[in-house]
């Protein structure tokens, strides 16, 4: 939204494609609808807190900005470095082309394979928040929150305000992580730190049991989750449970960037890939053959570039937009030191070094044991992947072909990082695969009917080249079978 407002205010025509029905991304999800709802939804709004309601100003500016063509309910299933975007809305699909593309596709929760994570009744913290914001639902019954990261505290505090008391908050992080992280606190990050201390204090006051340094999480049950088992303070705990909410931090969504042939880099501390970008978000091409020629027309912003949360995303969105305006010659390029928007980016990211150190990946810290499913779609276990790797399969794509790992509808979004780490585990010193599975369009399911009626085809490419399989008869030939 911030990029679009900045660009539209300078007179650019902007098309915004969004998978959701309303603007606001995941953080301000359904905010407009919740503000306008009758009967009123005060309990929900007060539980979600002032940070949620604060998004309304941005949404209103977005709605009011002339020159923004907002297309909700639209999925993007192809992206090319030359600025071509494949879209799907309802049963219609097509290609758009723009001289500049801003990729603001956000983050996903870190995939965390553990025993039982596919059972009904196991969900991510983001999923529960989405159900609160967009579904006006709150969890009920016996609830366990497990994992790490600020979102666990935020969610627990929101649940507390709704009168929902989890049976346990089981944290993988330890006090030691916090103490070690303290040296990374910068003055600008202190408000975030204070916010966290506040959450923690309120949760303790509400008497919600909390354990730190847990490990060995398992979800147990037949056709539905029945209990949670974990190791806390050296002892096994079994907790009867209806809903297990897991969270292990968030990582950039790299699917579109990767498919466009943009360079990714593996972040070891974060056990994930992220796109390689310049400070203004300009993406770099990966060092491999590209489908398109010419300059890369893509900038990446927000959590899709670097995890930073709402304020950082808004600040960087403006910064990336100003870089485009400078490219277009609509504003003067700032000489010398950082300009206003760049300073804002730095300020809003100030708390990140502390947060990253305080909440290292927990559930995903250790690779899953052999019996655990890694690929949720095709139900491929870590054990079968390890066997294939031991038998010499040294390449992500080869393993996909052998075992169908990553071949299901999610296209490897849930399993690619784990498989990459299993490959690295097998041969210490082997470099991490430079990217997830080879990505070819469509990146998201594209109905045949929509594909059949596609618009906006590139005339140069749409020229159908085909094998002419219909045999021509050869007159007078004397071949007989």
């Amino acid at each position, binding site marked *: 939204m911030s990029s679009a407002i900045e660009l539209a205010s300078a007179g650019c025509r902007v098309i915004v494609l969004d998978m959701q029905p309303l603007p606001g991304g995941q953080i301000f999800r359904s905010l407009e609808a919740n503000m306008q709802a009758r009967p009123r939804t005060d309990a929900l709004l007060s539980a979600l807190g002032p940070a949620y309601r604060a998004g309304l100003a941005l949404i209103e500016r977005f709605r009011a900005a002339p020159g923004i063509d907002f297309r909700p309910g639209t999925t993007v299933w192809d992206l090319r470095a030359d600025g071509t975007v494949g879209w799907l809305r309802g049963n219609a699909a097509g290609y758009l082309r723009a001289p500049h593309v801003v990729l603001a596709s956000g983050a996903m929760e870190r995939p965390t394979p553990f025993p039982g994570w596919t059972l009904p009744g196991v969900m991510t913290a983001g999923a529960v928040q989405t159900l609160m914001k967009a579904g006006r639902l709150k969890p009920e019954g016996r609830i366990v929150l497990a994992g790490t990261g600020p979102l666990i505290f935020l969610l627990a505090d929101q649940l507390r305000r709704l009168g929902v008391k989890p049976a346990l908050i089981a944290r993988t992080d330890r006090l030691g992580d916090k103490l070690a992280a303290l040296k990374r606190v910068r003055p600008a990050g202190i408000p975030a730190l204070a916010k966290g201390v506040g959450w923690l204090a309120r949760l303790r006051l509400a008497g919600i049991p909390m354990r730190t340094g847990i490990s060995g999480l398992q979800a147990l049950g037949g056709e539905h989750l029945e209990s949670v088992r974990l190791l806390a303070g050296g002892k096994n705990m079994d907790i009867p449970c209806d809903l297990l909410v897991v969270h292990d931090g968030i990582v950039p969504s790299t699917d579109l960037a990767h498919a466009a042939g943009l360079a990714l880099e593996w972040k070891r501390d974060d056990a994930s890939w992220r796109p390689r970008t310049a400070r203004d978000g300009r993406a770099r091409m990966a060092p491999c053959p590209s489908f398109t020629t010419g300059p890369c027309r893509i900038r990446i912003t927000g959590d899709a570039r670097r995890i930073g949360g709402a304020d950082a995303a808004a600040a960087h969105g403006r910064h990336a937009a100003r870089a485009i305006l400078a490219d277009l010659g609509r504003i003067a390029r700032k000489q010398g030191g950082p300009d206003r928007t760049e300073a804002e980016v730095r300020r809003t990211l100030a708390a990140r070094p502390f947060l990253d150190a305080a909440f290292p990946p927990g559930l995903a810290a250790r690779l899953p044991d052999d019996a655990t499913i890694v690929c949720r779609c095709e139900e491929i276990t870590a054990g079968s992947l390890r066997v294939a790797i031991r038998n010499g399969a040294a390449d992500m794509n080869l393993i996909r*072909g052998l075992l169908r790992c990553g071949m299901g509808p999610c296209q490897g979004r849930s399993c690619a990082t784990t498989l990459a780490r299993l490959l690295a585990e097998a041969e210490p010193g082997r470099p991490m695969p430079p990217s997830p599975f080879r990505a070819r369009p469509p990146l998201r*399911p594209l109905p*045949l009917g929509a594909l059949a009626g*596609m618009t906006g085809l590139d005339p140069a490419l749409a020229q159908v080249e085909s*094998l002419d399989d219909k045999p021509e008869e*050869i007159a007078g030939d004397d071949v007989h*079978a």
Partner: protein
Amino acid sequence: MHRNGCDALIVGGGLQGCSIALFLARAGWQVTLVEKNLAGRHASGVNAGGLRSLMRDVREYPLSLRAMEMWANLADFVGQDAAEACEVRLGTSQIALAMDAAELQWCGARARTMRGRGIESEELIAPDELHRLLPGLAGSAHGGLISRRDGHANPANSARAFRKAAEGAGVRILERCTVRDLSAKPLGGWRVDTDAGRIEAEWLLNCAGAWGSDIAARLGETLPITVLALSMMVTARVKPFIAPVVIGIDQPLSFKQSAVGSLVIGGGILGKPCLSEDTSFTVMDRMASSAAATVAAFPGLAGVPVVRTWTGLEGATDDGIPFIGPSRLHPGLWHVFGFCGHGFQLAPAVGEAVARSLVSGSLEATLAPFAVDRVHRPQRKDEAVP
């Protein structure tokens, strides 16, 4: 023999190269195969997996018939486990759909011509049987041609099965191994420098697929092909509903249901080849016409989502059939490439026939139509090869 010497060196680890290697090794030859990427990476592993004699060029028919027998008894050649992994389904039939009167007329003419040649397997199919075999088929489908013994297999698994069988028979397979230099030895045989060192061989076989022309050109021989990026679409899994493979006549249509339930849709739509970089790209702009042909024939599939696409590189000759045979210029050299996107079914028979020809010293009759010197003979058609 020199430590790195062998009877035959095969360049290219696709299905054809692995099949030839397998049959030569079974005949007792020492065989080395070099593959610059991974075996079966391109057209061999990335095709529709059709086991089709329907609408095949008549010059390929004798070889295709033998291949069909071999697919039916695949375990005899590649072993039980590998044969099972290939998911061979024969007798499901392949059907060429006539969607309009002109196509129907063409089907009638084709069936008559084939019968005239003594080939009875391509029959006209009546509308009621057509609609019974193909539930969900649009009412506008008029009829078509059916070849009842045809079927399909899993291409990627088949490429792996032949590779594994070749290794099991004693073939030395070197992957990620590029040929740097090729030269004929003065007294016969070949000296080939590769990433894995120098390899000497009595016979050299160019099975380099899309790179076949390049290898030939390095030895001074002009055998032109067009490089193609064969592309396929794969849908989400759907409940089993169709056993035959369906192909179009003038429509870009080809689809079948795989063993796991996904629909594999081809239709000869091509992607963008990138030969020098050893890769290719799918072009969704072109896939639209293939999707349109599929939905026109099966309207109920409009809501079925495509979840993946594949492409792999292949070479096509100007006259639509492969080059298989000894070089015109060099003794001890064979070319086997340019299968034009329909070599998958032929592969077992190609391996057998080439190996027999080499071992016996006399060319198998089934290979006669594919002689490489045909490009230098006067052409029947106007578009003569340079």
